[in-house]
């Protein structure tokens, strides 16, 4: 299953400057694992030592913040867009 992953500016050093890369996997967890094998090191920037999404990272599958869905187990159907975005305060 193929999805597209939007990469925030601060991680584009891993993707050769690309803002969007293609990914694969049944769930967000699988997509991130594949992403890390394509772009070694990027996974540890998104997940902490215990394998959880870092405190200051927001991940969206489609329109939904995965904290509202099933976290890393959120399904990633074919053609979805996944976005990785640093949390930012102040409204």
């Amino acid at each position: 299953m193929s999805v597209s992953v939007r990469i925030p500016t601060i991680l584009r050093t891993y993707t050769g400057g690309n803002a969007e890369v293609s990914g694969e996997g049944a769930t967000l967890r699988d997509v991130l694992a594949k992403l890390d094998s394509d772009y070694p090191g990027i996974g540890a920037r998104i997940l902490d030592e215990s394998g959880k999404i870092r405190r200051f990272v927001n991940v969206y599958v489609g329109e939904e913040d995965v904290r509202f869905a099933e976290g890393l187990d959120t399904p990633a159907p074919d053609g979805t867009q996944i976005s990785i975005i640093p949390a930012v305060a102040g409204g």
Partner: protein
Amino acid sequence: MSHDFGPAVALSCRECGARYPLGPSFACLECFGPLEAAYEFGNVTRADIESGPANIWRYRSLLPVPADVATKPNMNPGWTKLVKAGNLGQALGLKSLYVKDDSGNPTHSFKDRVVAIAVEAARTFGFHTLSCSSTGNLAGAVTAAAARAGLDACVFIPANLEAAKIAMARVFGGKLIGIEGTYDEVNRFCSELIGDPLGDKWGFVNVNLRPYYAEGSKTLAYEIAEQLGWRLPEQIIIPIASGSQLTKIDKGFKELVALGLVEDTPYKIFGAQAAGCSPVSTAYKAGHDVVQPVKPDTIAKSLAIGNPADGPYVLDIARRTGGAVEDVTDPEIVAAIKLLASTEGIFAETAGGVTVGVLKKLAESGRLDPEAETVVLNTGDGLKTLDAITGDDAKPTAVIRPSLDAFRAAV
């Protein structure tokens, strides 16, 4: 090229301490943690500050701004009134209560403080357009400041905001884009725009300029302490949207102590949310140190951030200082707006209803020391959220013909 940010010397990661040069960056490359300004303060004295202008620039030696900041075109916010609130204090059984009334700022909310710092950073970095994601007040503060600074503006809001906030953001010129969605969706949109060529040379005050912007909230702490006669308040009630303001008021108090400008006396920080958007209060009550996001539904639209980035820091601060985080319902917010208005002659927006409502709730449940010096923030103006006042409250007491008989019959 080196930028002049006065006493600020670097950006440092609040999570892991990694340091970066002062630039338009906001997230740590190591851990995604928020970057904040780090300083090497000179010798700052009360006399220096007191001889400064009656606005936030009296504290320029404590802010990431050049020494000549006051000479540049900006809104000169701050030095708002600290109102001794004897009547409200009496109504709530609090002996020494003050309202820090930030509705007195140029665009009628505390946001002018943060935006003024961001404008300086935007100028320094050579940005041509000032932008933000806003729950309402920030949009107006940004478009006004951009007009005065001679920058372009393009700001983003949830499309369903109060009419007054929309008109206020429009009147200063620039573009105002309503997004079909919540603030959190607007914020996400802006984060994506920043990494796109479309957003090149744009200063998003609360995204890529956030390390500078956020420091503006420290001036609330400085002013309150100075206005109390160079003393820290013992209890303070602060609204929470993203939690940035609360976090920076704590930082401001700590700096005053570290610089010897006030005595090191204990203070308790209480955070206030609307029940319809209370992710931080919920986490506080559950004893959690992470915040589960929510989808907001409250009349306090200016505080309707369901995924508050500084939430974990607010929890730390409330617990460390012996304060708390509490929330009040929409009817309690409206009642609190009316209570503040009828006791002190201050018309607060819904965010002020939230803080005063929480003040009342804490006082009534015995969680405030009635003898202690207490400050409650009003961060915005009631004229921007008129829809909160409805029914009989929004009508004259009576409508009569201009005759004494009619008046006698009506009262």
